[in-house]
């Protein structure tokens, strides 16, 4: 007993000492990353991100996270907080909003050199470059949303139709659906960003992907006076004239329009791949969702595989207290393990090659993999010139689309306002 007591003491001391040393070592290198997020805490995507952070901490025990779940006003709140000197390591938001917001304001950390070829090649084509500025990368996309016609597969079958490849086939589809007593397409009268998708797609199918910025950058305003622009505007009105969109839809306020799909009264809507999730409560889990890309137009330069997307991205801030660890984490989020967690728990489309999307998004996944060119939601003009898009293009188009004013008036207004915009810019 006498001999064993000092031995036990000695063992206890060793254990205590080594524990203290490890704790001290951890204390020295422990990092807490502050993450401001666009999700609200109860949302499945937030829970999925929690799991991703837990997985990262498991692999890197010295890194923990402090998360502020701000919801969709994240960037607005962050800009105010940054001005007041608040320290944040990284944040997330829609990529186009980041591009026109924090990135344009110089608040984002450039991470081009931190991303090696293997990392770049691991992402779906074009995803990383979409929000890059002259080759300089400031954010990593981690959620992939596509823009397609989302429709009820059973209703399409009932109408005896197939997904259209050309504009004329789309009009034929409308007629077929009308014959079975339903409306082919629906819109939300008050969501001009959604309605603009018709105009931007028609312009892109006519002039090629990302052509809207080029039309706008003609400082004389004459970009809009080209014959194809007027034709595109007129084609959007054809949707009403041919009865593709029910006349009632003019008065629909979000979410009244999309609910008609869930209720089986309408075939589908041109919108982002978030629609099945948005309608999951009212449509039910077994709703037969499918999607097809916007069709081509006669003699147009754009292909049906050219895709508009809305990617959600993570950005490390220039003023981040722990930039190295934050960059490492946002790369981890785009990695295979994290993406699989996000798909399984958050039901999102993955930005990484080889990670399967949820079954309901199978058509969106196919269109993302086969995309021949990417442009941002709405044709990309909102990303580069958000003020013109928000104050002129979207409201003026929506007025014309809903029947207040003619396509000719729209073209004339866009030309005049574009000229004014550039004149005032000087």
């Amino acid at each position, binding site marked *: 007993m006498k001999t064993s007591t000092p031995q036990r003491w000695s063992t206890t001391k060793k254990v205590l000492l080594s524990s203290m040393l490890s704790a001290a070592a951890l204390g020295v290198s422990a990092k807490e990353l502050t993450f401001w997020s666009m*999700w609200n*805490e109860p949302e499945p995507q937030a829970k999925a991100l929690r799991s991703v952070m837990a997985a990262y901490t498991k692999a890197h025990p010295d890194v923990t996270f402090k998360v502020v779940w701000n919801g969709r006003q994240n960037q607005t709140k962050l800009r105010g907080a940054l001005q007041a000197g608040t320290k944040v390591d990284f944040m997330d938001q829609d990529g186009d909003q980041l591009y026109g917001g924090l990135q344009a304001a110089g608040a984002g950390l450039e991470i081009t050199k931190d991303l090696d070829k293997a990392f770049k090649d691991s992402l779906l084509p074009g995803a990383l470059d979409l929000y890059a500025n002259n080759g300089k990368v400031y954010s990593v996309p981690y959620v992939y949303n596509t823009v397609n016609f989302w429709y009820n597969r059973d209703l399409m079958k009932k109408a005896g139709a197939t997904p259209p490849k050309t504009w004329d086939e789309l009009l034929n589809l409308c007629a077929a659906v009308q014959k079975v007593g339903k409306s082919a397409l629906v819109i939300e009268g008050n969501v001009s960003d959604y309605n603009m998708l018709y105009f931007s797609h028609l312009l892109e199918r006519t002039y090629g992907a990302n052509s809207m910025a080029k039309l706008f950058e003609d400082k004389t305003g004459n970009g809009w006076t080209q014959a194809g622009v007027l034709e595109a505007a007129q084609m959007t009105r054809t949707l009403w004239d041919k009865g593709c969109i029910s006349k009632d839809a003019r008065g629909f306020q979000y*979410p009244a329009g999309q609910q008609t799909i869930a209720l089986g009264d309408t075939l589908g809507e041109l919108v982002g791949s978030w629609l099945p999730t*948005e309608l999951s409560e009212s449509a039910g889990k077994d709703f037969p969702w499918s999607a097809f890309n916007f069709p081509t137009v006669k003699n147009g330069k754009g292909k049906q595989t050219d895709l508009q997307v809305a990617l959600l991205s993570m950005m490390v801030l220039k003023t981040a207290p722990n930039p190295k660890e934050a960059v490492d984490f946002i790369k981890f989020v785009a990695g295979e393990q994290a993406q699989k967690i996000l798909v399984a728990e958050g039901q999102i489309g993955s930005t990484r090659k080889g990670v399967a999307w949820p079954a309901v998004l199978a058509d969106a996944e196919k269109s993302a993999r086969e995309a021949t060119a990417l442009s941002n939601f709405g044709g990309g003009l909102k990303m580069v010139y958000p003020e013109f898009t928000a104050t002129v293009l979207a409201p003026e188009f929506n007025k014309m689309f809903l029947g207040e004013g003619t396509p000719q008036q729209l073209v004339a207004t866009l030309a005049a306002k574009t000229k004014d915009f550039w004149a005032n810019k000087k």
Partner: protein
Amino acid sequence: MQPASSSSRSTSLKRGIGRAFTYATVGAWSLFTVFFVVWIVIASLKKTRDLFSEPWSLPLKPVWGNYVKTWVSSHFGDYFLNSLWVVSISVCMLLVVCVPAAYVLARARFRGREALANFFILGMGVPIPLLFVPLVVIMTTLRMGDSLSGLSVVYVALSVPFTIYVLMGFFASLPGEIESAAIIDGCSDFQTFWHVMMPLAMPGIATVAILNFVGLWNEYQLSLVLINSPENRTLSLGIYSLISSMQYSGGDWPGLFAGITIVMVPTIIMFVAMSERMISGITMGGVK
């Protein structure tokens, strides 16, 4: 006599028509408001699909779980307590600051009184969005950013002009003889204020308390800018986070209506409980 009688008949007819028009307008307005309040409560007890397929029907099997989900999962219980705390404290602090100030500005005679009163009134014209950045900087410097106590201080500061303006009217309308009698009876200035004038102004004080309570209960912009931590969110921020999470995450519309009902309940209770006093306060301020 004949013409006079006919003219009085036509005057009373005109008055009757005017009154009928007023009642019809106010009645229609009230019906419109009550209808939508009732519709929101009914909508909060439905399933999402039923809400859109049969928007005007009554819920045969009310889904009380919408309230439980909103209260617990969406943290409305916490937001409710935050709102209650921050608004109650703000209104109490406002009254402590503004009642004596308004009394002095309304009744005392001293150099610069008018300028001071006008200065407060001027404060009502400052657009709140202009103050966002300075407020964030000041509150962060004072280490009161992202806190309910900081938000409360801002609420008090920005509500002072309106409260003083309204209360000055009440104090100015009180008869001076009562004040003089109290002074002749030996009351000090403070005793005159505390024991005589403040009780007389109670309907007015109740009115500003209710108006401020309702205004701050529904306030959104300042709390959006000044509060970041989810645990410090107020109800209006909670409602907004419910709305914004509709995109990408799916629409729980009945849950949203349950949240709106939760927000409405305290203000409705307050109006029901204190409407008599408020009306008498407004009438008193308006007539005298």
